[in-house]
């Protein structure tokens, strides 16, 4: 069991190493051997990556099935690394949560690997691309299966750096490079807090092994748990792009679309939510932290939805929607429904990956990221259109697709918040959830209409995307549509009439509003009715500008100041010591003027001083 889990983690890792070193060589080999069949089969890196992903998916599936048949956590430790204090356990732990999230990760990764073959067919750097995707998959699986907090952290950070490389994949463009750096730095800022949270929790509990830590959480002082969870939240906010560390995600859309689908929609950003779910007992022991999470979620949810409403770039719409949807999960955790949150994590993983991959098809066909360049694609791209329609429906939460069930579970739970968070916070969260449903419907409708309806606004050849791309999209539509029904098995995930009706009503209102505006003139962007606030929404409430002024500029100034100080104060002090010594030497050689009588005076005066000193002090 644990061996299988390790294989799940290791196979993409090995694929990454092998692909990085030998991928191109394999391509050349396949080329010279003249392997028959589709040219995909001659793409060495892709072959390696896909095979490994498929293997990992297979292993994950077996793990999940085994666990479904025989529930109960399993763990295994390979070795303990001594550190001088608490040892680090190199070991994995698998429970239901881990198995199902792991399976989801593998599936999305496989879909993305396949999709990328076509999307990046002409890319000269395919081997590094595929290798980083594999490495990322491996790291994410490590986060999912890790049995030790520090091991989890290793995966957590490696994901970050893979995200950096993949966002910056097209580094020729400085904007991509900047986005990559920003993503890494913002998440790393949170990660430092996360690491400290691990320290607090681990040192407090006397171990870094997750199950042990959770077992001992009850015995820890409240302040320790609170400090630990709050610090962990910093990391969560960074990775899961929650306010105030969300700013990197919209920019991260600079990466290739499959990457957005894999990392910035379905998996890595979900890691934050996953970790909270994993360590949920600790959070339950610190309601204040959950309240903070709730507030964070409420702000992110509504703010991101509003920002999504005004974006002109399809991928940025999806990015903000991701922030907003992740906030749903966070809200779910804050109000005490771990299963609801995880349920939404899974359905979101499916439908957001679908949406991104579909968006990738649209971009592939139209050659543009901007909504205003699309229009009328419904006819030419049936698979994409229908898949995306299902995806948007799930996003808005329309029955019977998956999003409806998971969102409903969260909204219902928020009504009866049972996690111990203060009442007002629960109320705010609940109301925000409802408002966001309406806004979500509005921006989803806007994007859907602008893309597929009306007439084409720029010149492109409407056609369906290549099969390697459209098929994964189509296949992903299946879980998007039906995943919700799996929730019916658990009582707390079943839809409730009241809240379902309420949210449908709100969604309808939002959707209709967008439709009404669009219908007035299908050639124009419905967001125009937002008027003066449109810019504010589009710029994400100017959070970036604030950070620029409050963080980036001062740090730059400080850096310049440090260089100045180093040059002009510290180094000057060192260097001037040489000059001072020389000058001192110049002064001291004055008496050495050649005049013997000066010498004699010096000698006798010195003698007199010595004699006087001796007489006085003895």
């Amino acid at each position, binding site marked *: 069991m644990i061996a299988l889990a390790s294989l799940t983690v290791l196979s993409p890792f090995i694929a990454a190493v092998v692909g990085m070193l030998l991928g191109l060589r394999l391509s050349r080999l396949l080329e010279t051997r003249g392997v028959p069949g589709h040219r995909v089969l001659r793409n060495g890196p892709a072959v390696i990556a896909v095979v490994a992903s498929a293997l990992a998916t297979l292993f994950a599936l077996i793990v999940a099935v085994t666990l479904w048949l025989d529930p109960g956590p399993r763990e295994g430790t390979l070795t303990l690394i001594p550190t001088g204090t608490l040892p680090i356990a190199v070991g994995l732990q698998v429970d239901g949560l881990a198995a199902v999230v792991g399976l989801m990760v593998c599936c999305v990764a496989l879909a993305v690997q396949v999709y990328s073959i076509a999307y990046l067919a002409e890319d000269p750097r395919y081997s590094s691309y595929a290798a980083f995707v594999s490495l990322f998959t491996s790291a994410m699986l490590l986060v999912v299966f890790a049995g030790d907090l520090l091991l989890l952290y290793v995966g957590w950070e490696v994901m970050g750096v893979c995200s950096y490389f993949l966002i910056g994949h097209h580094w020729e463009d400085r904007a991509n490079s900047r986005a990559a750096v920003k993503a890494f730095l913002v998440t790393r800022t949170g990660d430092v807090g996360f690491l400290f949270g691990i320290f607090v929790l681990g040192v407090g509990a006397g171990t870094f092994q997750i199950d042990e830590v959770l077992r001992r959480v009850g015995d820890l002082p409240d302040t320790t748990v609170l400090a630990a969870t709050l610090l962990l939240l910093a990391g969560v906010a960074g990775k899961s792009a929650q306010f105030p560390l969300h700013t990197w995600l919209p920019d991260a859309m600079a990466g290739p679309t499959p990457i957005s689908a894999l990392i910035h929609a379905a998996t890595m950003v979900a890691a934050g939510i996953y970790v909270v779910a994993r360590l949920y007992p600790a959070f339950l022991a610190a309601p204040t932290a959950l309240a903070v999470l709730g507030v964070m979620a409420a702000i992110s949810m509504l703010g991101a939805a509003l920002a999504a409403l005004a974006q002109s770039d399809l991928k940025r719409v999806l990015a903000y929607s991701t922030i907003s949807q992740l906030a749903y999960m966070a809200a779910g955790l804050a109000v005490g429904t771990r299963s609801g949150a995880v349920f939404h994590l899974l359905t979101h993983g499916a439908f957001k990956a679908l949406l991104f991959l579909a968006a990738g098809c649209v971009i592939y066909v139209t050659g543009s990221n901007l909504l205003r360049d699309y229009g009328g694609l419904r006819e030419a791209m049936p698979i994409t259109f229908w898949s995306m329609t299902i995806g948007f429906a799930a996003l808005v939460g329309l029955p019977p697709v998956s999003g409806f069930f998971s969102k409903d579970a969260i909204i219902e739970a928020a009504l009866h918040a049972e996690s111990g968070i203060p009442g007002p916070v629960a109320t705010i969260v609940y109301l925000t959830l409802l408002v966001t449903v309406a806004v979500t419907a509005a921006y989803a409708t806007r994007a859907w209409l602008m893309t597929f309806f009306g007439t084409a606004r720029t010149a492109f050849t409407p056609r369906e995307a290549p099969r390697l791309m459209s098929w994964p999209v189509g296949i992903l539509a299946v879980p998007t549509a039906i995943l919700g029904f799996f929730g019916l098995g658990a009582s707390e995930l079943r839809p409730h009439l009241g809240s379902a009706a309420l949210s449908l009503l709100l969604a309808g209102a939002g959707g209709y509003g967008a439709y009404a505006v669009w219908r007035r003139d299908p050639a124009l962007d419905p967001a125009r009715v937002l008027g003066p606030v449109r810019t504010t929404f589009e710029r994400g409430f100017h959070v970036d500008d604030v950070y620029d002024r409050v963080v980036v500029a001062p740090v730059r100034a400080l850096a310049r100041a440090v260089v100045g100080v180093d040059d002009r104060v510290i180094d000057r002090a060192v260097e001037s010591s*040489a000059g001072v*010594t*020389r000058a*001192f*030497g*110049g002064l*001291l*050689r004055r*008496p*050495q003027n*050649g005049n*013997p009588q*000066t*010498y*004699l005076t*010096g*000698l*006798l*005066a*010195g*003698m007199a001083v*010595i*004699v006087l*000193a*001796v*007489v006085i002090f*003895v």
Partner: protein
Amino acid sequence: MIQAIDYAAIAPVLIIAAAAVALLLADAFDVPKRFLGLGCAGALLAGLVAVIALAFGGPRATFCLPSGLRGDGPPSCSYVADDFALLFQVIVLAAAVIVVLMSFDEITASRLPAGEYYFLLLCALIGALTLVAARDLVLLIVALETLSLPVFALVALRRYDGRAGEAALKLFLISVISAAVMLFGISLVYGVTGAMHLDRVAAALARTPADLKPVAAVGVVMVIAGFAFKVAAVPFHFWAPDVYQGSPLPVAALLSVVSKAGGFAGLVITVAIGFPSYGHVWGPLLAVLAALTMTLGNVVALRQRHAVRLLAWSSVAQSGYMLAPLAVGARRLPDAVAATAAYVALYAVMNIGAFAVVAAVARRYARNFLTDYRGLARANPAAAAALAFFLVCLAGLPPGVMGLFAKIVVFRATVAGDVVWLAVVMAINTVIGLYYYLAWAVRLFAAPETEGPPLRTGWAVGAAIGAAAAGAVVLSVAPQLVVQTVSAIT
């Protein structure tokens, strides 16, 4: 009252004295200069052999107080050839051999009168040899003066050169006034103790009546002043740079090594045997003097452009290091004495080597500026390598392990005596010292301003450099030779 004299004990001194007279006579008979020089070197080697032979026997003492006069006091011998004295005699004689080798060319080039030169040199050595073995104040001062007086004449031997006369006069004036101060100190010590023999002085000083203590203390420091002049410690250092610069190079080498070794030996003998009970007076005094000396020497050396003046100031600074262990006062004195002795021994090798190379270079560039050393590595690689090695030794860094060990030994003794502040001052001074030694060493390997023909050294100077370099290399490989010997002695 007839005293039995142990001629074996004073054999080295006698050999040198006889040689001195013989050389003077030989010169009168117009023996060629070369033979005079060789004779002189031979006499020194003979003296060296005698000293080494003495070292295998036990310590010898002579000119002791007859038992009738001794009372129940200590033996009170005036001349003691113990291991300490023999060690310094070895240093003095070995250094003198190198000096003589350096003199061969100098005598020809500067047209010095060879007979007088060697005679005076040997006379000075008689003073040095006696000084290191003297154990009473009378003999100490007489030996000190015997060491000084011939050197005045040696400095002035370049009669045509106004600078030589000037240097001689400066040395003379400062020397005689220091001697006067020292004599005055001796008279005070004598007045307090009623004794001239150091062992008796020590016993008497230990029970000085309270009202006489300041007098005794003043006497003690005035005696020390005399030696401080010899070793060129601040504020008795003024003569050193001018005299080194004005005198023939072998004489400068003599002053900076032989004379200084004698001075240190005398100082050590006086304070360790004569004044141990006044350690609380001379300890701090020497600490301050050491700190001032090393700092002043190094800091002023930084500004030098003249090779000999630089060596002069550096040897002032080195005196500071040698004084430092004695700053411990009476506490752990044997360690301190061993450290000073070891440093003097190691310093003698490296400093005389540096002087030998400078003397070789002086054959081409009489002015001897540091800039003249540019490109020496091309003109004469062996000399340049040797000089670089000596300088690195003086700086006290590996590969000059002997210099490093010298520093370690001194630091150790200083720290052991709890004078940590002085050790820290010394650490800082090492850095200043390194700068100018290194800057000089680097010059050797820089491209010369004008490409000259290869610089040839005469066989004598070559031998001098070779001998010093061999000594330095051997001691760098096995510095424990000196360290062990010295500590076995003290």
